[in-house]
């Protein structure tokens, strides 16, 4: 029920806030790039397959090119050997972009506290949502997606995100 100015305009024009309409579009059409390295990638496959069906949340257009994606899902352990590649792929993604660290390894190194495993990808690239679990169940990945959508809703299109981020490879 329109109560203000809209009441006089009939059904042709809607006034809104630019942030709201842009974020509405962004949050329901996230295009994921799956940086799958280990076990968590198998669980992402399950999240994408029929039973859990990630397309119910508008994120089924999985792209294998970072240039066509705006959501990076880091599924699996990142080693120091892999780290420069992760950073380069992140940089190839156009703004605005978001990152979900899926699982214990991507979030903190997980059970691999040793010479070759990066202790959390947030030492290399900025992360928006962390998912716990080793590996997380598909429902948890969907939960992270919903949380990210909530976060996007509150963002401003005028502000640069993570401008001052500095990781170990910068």
């Amino acid at each position: 029920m329109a109560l203000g100015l809209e009441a006089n305009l009939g059904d042709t024009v809607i006034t809104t806030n630019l942030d709201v309409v842009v974020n509405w579009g962004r949050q329901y059409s996230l295009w994921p790039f799956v940086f799958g390295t280990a076990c968590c990638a198998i669980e992402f496959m399950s999240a994408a397959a029929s039973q859990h069906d990630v397309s119910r949340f508008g994120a089924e257009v999985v792209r294998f090119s970072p240039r066509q994606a705006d959501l990076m899902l880091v599924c699996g352990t990142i080693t120091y050997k892999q780290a420069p590649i992760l950073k380069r792929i992140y940089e190839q993604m156009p703004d605005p972009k978001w990152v979900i660290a899926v699982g214990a390894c991507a979030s903190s190194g997980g059970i691999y506290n040793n010479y070759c495993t990066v202790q959390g990808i947030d030492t290399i690239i900025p992360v928006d949502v962390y998912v716990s679990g080793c590996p997380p169940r598909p429902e948890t990945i969907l939960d992270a997606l919903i949380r990210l959508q909530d976060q996007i809703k509150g963002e401003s299109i005028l502000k640069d995100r993570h401008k001052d981020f500095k990781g170990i490879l910068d």
Partner: protein
Amino acid sequence: MNTTALEKIQAAFPDAICKVALDSVVINVQPENLEPTLSRLKNDPDFNCTLLADVTAIDYLEYPKHQGPRFSVVYTMRNWEDNLLLQVKTPVADPEVGVSSAAHLWGAALWGEREAYDQYGINFQGHPDLRRILNHWQFKGHPLRKDYPIEKRQICYETDSLEPEIRARLAKKGVDDQTLKDINTEVMFLNLGPSHPATHGAIRILTALDGETILANVNEIGYLHRGFEKNSEKMTYNQIIPMTDRLNYCSSMINNIAYVKAIESWLGVTITERAQFMRVVLTEFYRVLDHLVCISAAFVDIGGLTGYWYLYNEKEAAYDFISRLTGARLTSSFTRVGGMYRDFYDGWKEDMEHHIKTIEQGIDDALTLIAANRILHDRTQGVCVISGETALSYGVTGPVLRASGVPYDLRKDAPYYNYESFDFEIPVGSTGDIYDRFMIRFFEMKESISIIRQAMKSIPEGPINVTDSQVVLPKKEDVYSNIEGLANHFKLIFEGVKTPPGEWYDAFEAANGELGFHFVSDGSGKPYKLKVRPPCFYTMGAFHKMVEGNMIADAVINLSCINIIGGELDR
């Protein structure tokens, strides 16, 4: 191992000290005798060790009361036809000087020795391409040496270019600099991975192309090297079980079972009948699931998404059974040294029968799609062929080796858990092409389902754990009500299951091939050294032999049909 094998080998190598360790005969030789010994074992028809299973080194720096040089190198090899398992061990006085390489005898030594060099810093004289394999090229030191601190991390800033390696490979294939410069035969370098949809994980494939044909191929692995072996040295035997889940995460249960079987064999523990049958049922079920993932992913790569849905949905449904049984979907951690974590739940047989029935339906649906499918046949038949001889030399095992016509399967050749009493066939391919590797998995699934049905019929009732208090935790009511139970529990949890000092190798037929564990024990509850012999590692080592001369698009589907799993490839 029977004593005749020991006598035969001792008679053939009178200078060497030969010992029996589980199923294998260990031949201790001096470094100068290493090359002649290996070469005789490979070429002498009496021994005919065509399969080099693994190469590793041992650092005795902290080993109690050790005498002699700090390092040793161990070669593990098989004559699969006669079920002869041999280990040749030699001390290394100076790792910088090292020992002579076996790369001219077996292709598997190429990667096996590179790993020993990377992890232990042992030089192999005469190795054509001795450089790091698991750790990155900017890494300093050798992480599996006992004096390398586990938390000493080293940052990699740049990826290795691999240009000298691919040029060397081109030169070996007869493409010289002149041809490279000629505009008409211009060679293009194409890099796939390590983050590429076709690489199923983190593998880097660098190819030199003439048009679309692969002239030369070099592969880089280690992107998922997460220090399983170093971490294991700090954990008790039972604590390592959850880590084994993450080796091959498509068939975690098989890793659990293979790992505890290796320890039980050394302890001399025979698990209960029911536990043996449980392990057979679960191994075969996971073999089916592993093959389902492999084939469905291969369908995606080939462009047949329908096949993916038919097969992957069945796997997804099977997770319900697994979560109900183990509490987890992917990482089961279901075994313990001496038995199993839990028994089957009531009504598991009906659930299992339901799942294998739907899986059979999925297999039949998928097979109908491809049986007379011209596109699939044209793309897979006669493509990326590898001969049985080459495959053996490179240490390829499992379905990929059987597709090349070699019927080597540990379930038949060195049976355990009553496999000899089950009625099943080993499917064998005729040409060793992609089509064979594809179809072998379909037939193996059918055989596995038949084994599951037989085992379900004859599984006995009874306990699932042995009653040895040195191995298995006491009952909870004992822990809470009497001091012996409490002390027993405390000691097993804190100190771990103690294994007698020694070294042994034990193998298991996993979904991808021979999964071996090489242990060194100092008598404590934690392994002094634990080396995994992953089937994927050596299959990937033969990848260039399969794809060179074929099209780039074939390399992609070849990778999916050899089922490389990053977790066990790089550990």
